[in-house]
């Protein structure tokens, strides 16, 4: 089958918040959005508790406080020029969403309602502050819908259910992407001046995760395969309150409204770990605290969970401010949070690392921040870095919107100035070869490996050896296992031989992305001999600013090996201090 060719000024890969925000800001240009899901299915829609912005609608607040909290929350690894932009532009972004019709919950005087959230404080850490702007506990759902609606209004062109397989570079410039139309198996070449990677996270490298099945690190892996490094991949956030065994998220907003954590002995254990912010300490700290309690045998009834108790909030607050999570708990656990505490455990939630960019969303490829012309990244798949070693709740929604918009605007500028580079010779060849290998298997026969079995093994080993607690030993082990899985992946053969909606093939491609992303995650984690934010090394429990106040860059060399290098952190207003809550 011949590939179908398209030509656009700009192509956006991913139809979640970052991609759609960029698309709205590129409206009027020749732009196409490629999404492997219908855009309204994107994972932005599952964000619950709110978007952080210092509106000051409920109490005094300032963007400088938001910036400080974000920097401190990042364990001082965030780049402060980018964090300043995040905190400043959050405010206008929330107003823009409101003007576009987003149905925020309201204060009695009609303003956007705000609630408390982990790590967000007034006066540089004195006490929790009401900063998270919310629409009940489905803020992400409303953001995704509002952005998609704006795309409809602006007649943005979508290619729904297209899986991107390859990123095309010509010389040192971006030239487009190759994608598979899932519905009919047709290959498409999109020739473009600029490409935005906005594919979201990669939580499916872990066994217990809040992330959708679709979150397989596509954009990160595509960049890595094109020779671009990935930044700070060792920092992966575990959200403290996933539903026991399932990993489904229970918003931090539940604690923002006053919910409390208890161990199996009925103790409010956060008093011992974060005496000032307690249950509203940042996520890395609470997840570690829960793991410590569980390891000491303080789980509930000896099991691997603690309790999140909302009962004292009362029916009215629970049902009006937290209706969706109430529904999840009732549906999946068969218990009512109004009368019973909720069993929770930490769940893999968010990659702080990703494709390195500057504050305009332009991908930068080395220690000197050299720009790769025409390539952009935004949202969870990118690393600006505003989250450093640990992201604060509500800041991912700020990130996708602030930097999605900046990327969109800069792409608009770029496509006005740049020439369309030629396509590389036989642009779809690599993509075609990948699909052929996954369909035909090793030499057409021989013992084929199964995608599900390899993926299960990857997720289990990553959970066991590279999650909340890590050691040099556990990481070295999982590194070998991931390498072995990469070898076995070469022997994969899918069962479905058809071309029509072949999700067997899609999952096989996605497993390849997961393996690449996991490999960099483990390599960077093994190298970093300190503990910072979400990266906790039991053999190096202290933060070490002398040696490790720097960003990692993991790159695939021509030989196939991974190579690490480092670049400095941008520090402007806030010098690193000991991080206490």
């Amino acid at each position, binding site marked *: 089958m011949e590939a179908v060719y398209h030509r656009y000024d700009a192509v956006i890969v991913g139809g979640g918040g970052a991609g759609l925000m960029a698309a709205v800001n590129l409206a009027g240009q020749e732009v196409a959005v490629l999404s492997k*899901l*219908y855009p*309204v*299915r*994107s*994972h932005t*829609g*599952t964000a619950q508790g709110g978007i952080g912005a210092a*509106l000051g609608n409920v109490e005094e607040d300032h963007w400088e406080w938001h910036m400080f909290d974000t920097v401190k929350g990042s364990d001082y690894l965030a780049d402060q020029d980018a964090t300043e932009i995040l905190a400043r532009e959050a405010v206008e972004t*929330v*107003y823009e969403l*409101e*003007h*576009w*019709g987003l*149905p*925020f*919950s*309201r*204060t*009695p*005087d*009609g*303003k*956007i309602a705000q609630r408390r959230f982990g790590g967000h404080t007034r006066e540089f850490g004195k006490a929790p502050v009401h900063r998270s702007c919310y*629409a*009940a506990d*489905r803020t992400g*759902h*409303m953001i995704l819908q509002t952005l998609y*609606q*704006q795309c*409809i*209004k602006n007649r943005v062109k979508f290619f*729904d259910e297209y899986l991107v397989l390859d990123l095309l570079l010509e010389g040192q410039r971006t030239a487009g992407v190759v994608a598979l139309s899932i*519905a009919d198996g047709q290959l498409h070449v999109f020739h473009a001046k600029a490409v935005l990677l906005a594919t979201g996270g990669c939580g499916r490298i872990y066994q217990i995760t809040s992330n*959708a*099945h*679709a979150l397989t690190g596509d954009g990160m892996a595509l960049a890595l395969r094109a020779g671009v490094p990935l930044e700070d991949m060792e920092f992966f956030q575990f959200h403290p309150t996933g539903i026991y065994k*399932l990993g*489904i998220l229970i918003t931090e907003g539940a604690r923002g409204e006053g919910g409390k954590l208890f161990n199996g002995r009925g103790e409010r254990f956060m008093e011992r770990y974060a005496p000032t912010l307690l249950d509203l300490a940042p996520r890395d700290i609470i997840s570690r605290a829960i793991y410590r309690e569980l390891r000491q045998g303080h789980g509930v009834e000896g099991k691997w969970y603690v309790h999140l108790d909302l009962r004292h909030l009362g029916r009215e607050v629970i049902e009006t401010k937290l209706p*969706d999570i109430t*529904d*999840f708990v009732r*549906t*999946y656990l*068969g218990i009512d949070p109004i009368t019973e505490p909720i069993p929770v455990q930490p769940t893999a939630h968010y990659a702080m690392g990703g494709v390195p960019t500057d504050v305009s969303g332009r991908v930068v490829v080395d220690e000197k921040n050299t720009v790769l012309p025409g390539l952009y990244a935004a949202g969870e798949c990118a690393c600006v870095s505003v989250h450093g070693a640990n992201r604060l709740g509500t800041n991912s929604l700020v990130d996708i919107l602030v930097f999605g918009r900046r990327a969109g605007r800069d792409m608009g500028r770029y496509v006005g100035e740049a020439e369309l580079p030629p396509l590389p010779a036989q642009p779809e060849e690599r993509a075609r070869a990948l699909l052929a290998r996954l369909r035909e298997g090793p030499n057409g026969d021989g013992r084929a490996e*199964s*995608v*599900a079995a390899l993926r299960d093994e990857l997720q289990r080993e990553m959970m066991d050896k590279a999650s909340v607690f890590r050691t040099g030993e556990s990481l070295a082990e999982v590194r070998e296992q991931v390498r072995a899985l990469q070898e076995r992946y070469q022997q994969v053969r*899918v*069962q*479905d*031989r*058809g071309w*029509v*909606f*072949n*999700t*067997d093939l899609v999952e096989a491609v996605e497993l390849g992305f997961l393996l690449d992303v996991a490999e960099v995650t483990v390599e960077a984690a093994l190298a970093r001999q300190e503990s910072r934010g979400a990266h906790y090394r039991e053999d190096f429990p202290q933060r070490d600013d002398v040696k490790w106040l720097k960003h990692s860059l993991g790159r695939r060399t021509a030989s196939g090996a991974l190579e690490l290098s480092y670049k400095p952190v941008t520090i402007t207003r806030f010098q690193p201090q000991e991080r206490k809550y």
Partner: protein
Amino acid sequence: MKVKLRIKRFERGKDREPYWAEYEVEAEPTDRLLDALHAVKWYQDGTLAFRRSCAHGVCGSDAMLINGVNRLACKVLLKDLGQRITVEPMRGFAVIKDLVVEFDRFMEKYRLVEPYLKAGSEPPAKERLQTPEERERFDDTTKCILCGACTTSCPSFWSNPDYLGPAAIVQAHRFLFDSRDEATAERLVVLGARDGVWRCRTIYNCTDACPRGIEVTRAIGEVKKALLLGKR
């Protein structure tokens, strides 16, 4: 426990007629139907096709006909389905493969109701004000995840594929009753047209089918009332 799944299968361009395939999987009573479908796909038959993503009832990918009613596969537990479970694609949309149906026309109707805020006036520097009561007026219809369960359970839609259908009307309702929207007259023209709300015969299938608990039939009724008596 052991569960028997009877799944209606079909591939566009290959099969002339749909056929039934049976699978048996070992599962926990508290597993989601989606988990059982994955057990089939991952360990028995990789050719089975269905959509899914978030797996907890928010993204709207996996609406299908389960034991004769539209449900999300990720939001229904096996213990509530018995040990013989029938799974079919939603009715009224063309089937692409197995449980995967064509969504393009459904999304076209969504676009037809112009689902975005139309406020002619310049926005203020900060937010537009809206009281909690005004916000509550349309809260129910903001929950829609466009999964298609309501529209494909509607006999009026089955008999007339041009009918806007409950999902598009729910999305229109969300703007019609938003105090910030200034396009009531325009919206009512679309909703009152031949294939608009009057095709609804108040059968309530849509309300039963909605995995988000939206009172769909009531929302459609409120639009009808607005057409007859003006918006209130």
